[in-house]
């Protein structure tokens, strides 16, 4: 039988929450040339069993949600990033050197149950 989607509003379900860090708020605009800030998104929300069947989650999450449905002592699957992207920061140090630095996996693009 089709598993009823939980009554809880979608807002409680696992999804990406957007959060923008503006370097000017930190006073970093005095030395960061670009970008003006960056997306510090995060993943949050519930991972009920039904979620794992359509939110691109790992097989392990499906099994864990299934086990949790059978035995609540097994923890639920959790809401985690499943797609990340890098950022580059162009800034100047106290010596006048212009620096371009890349940081891997800094921005959460997608979330899923894992």
């Amino acid at each position, binding site marked *: 039988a089709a598993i009823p989607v939980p009554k809880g509003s979608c807002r409680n379900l696992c999804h990406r929450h957007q959060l923008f860090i503006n370097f000017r708020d930190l006073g970093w605009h005095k030395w960061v040339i670009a970008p003006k800030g960056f997306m510090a998104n995060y993943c949050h929300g519930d991972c009920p069993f039904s979620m794992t069947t359509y939110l691109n989650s790992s097989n392990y999450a499906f099994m864990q949600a299934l086990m949790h449905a059978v035995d609540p002592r097994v923890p639920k699957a959790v809401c985690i990033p499943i797609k990340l*992207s890098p950022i580059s920061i162009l800034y*100047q140090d106290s010596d006048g050197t212009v620096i371009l630095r890349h940081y891997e996996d800094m921005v959460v693009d997608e979330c899923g149950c894992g």
Partner: protein
Amino acid sequence: SKFQEYDFLQFLDLEKAPSPRRFQPVPRILRKIFQAREAAVAGGPSQDLCYVKELGVRGNLLRLLPDQGFFLNTQKPSRDGSCLQKYLYFNLSAIQVKGTLTMARLTLDLGPRSYYNLGPEVEVALSVVEEHGVWGRSHPKPGRMFALQSVPGPQGPLHFNLQDVVKDWNSNGLKNLGLYLEILAKEDRHSGVNFQVENTCDRLIRSLHASLLVVTLNPEHCPSSSRKRR
């Protein structure tokens, strides 16, 4: 809540928030790489952050160091056509030992390209300084010459590979005492065109701009297999 700025700086591999006195102009090459990276992120394909395709080298940290040297003479050009001598100094202390140096490119920008400064031919000589001068009394002494280049007209950027020189300073124990730059303007008696060597030298002294682009690869962030297999 109080933003843990210190932790964030540490996370970005910075001891403390820099406090530059004034912003340096951002060189076109860094702006181009930054914009290409931003576009790649927006476009979606995964990119190899440990390879700088615009420069054709591996690396995940690019630094453009400003020249902190000074002119050694700005008198009239001497008999042998020597236009200017300049002491070049780049503070390499920030280049962490843990990073592997993959590029050190000196750029001498002789000034904007134009149709009316077509000559005279100039010769650019670069040497390593092996003996510090005494401020105000003696000039830094040029040691080994590592580059000599003739340029048809005193204009546009010239690039010199300094990787071996910087490696000597960074890891072979030679002290970084700076570089000695000499530019000679060569009268061209055959062409009959009398280039005003003096004007050329004056303009070069006004427009010369030196910078050093250093690319390093941090093995912690860039394991050797980080390049995607084709």
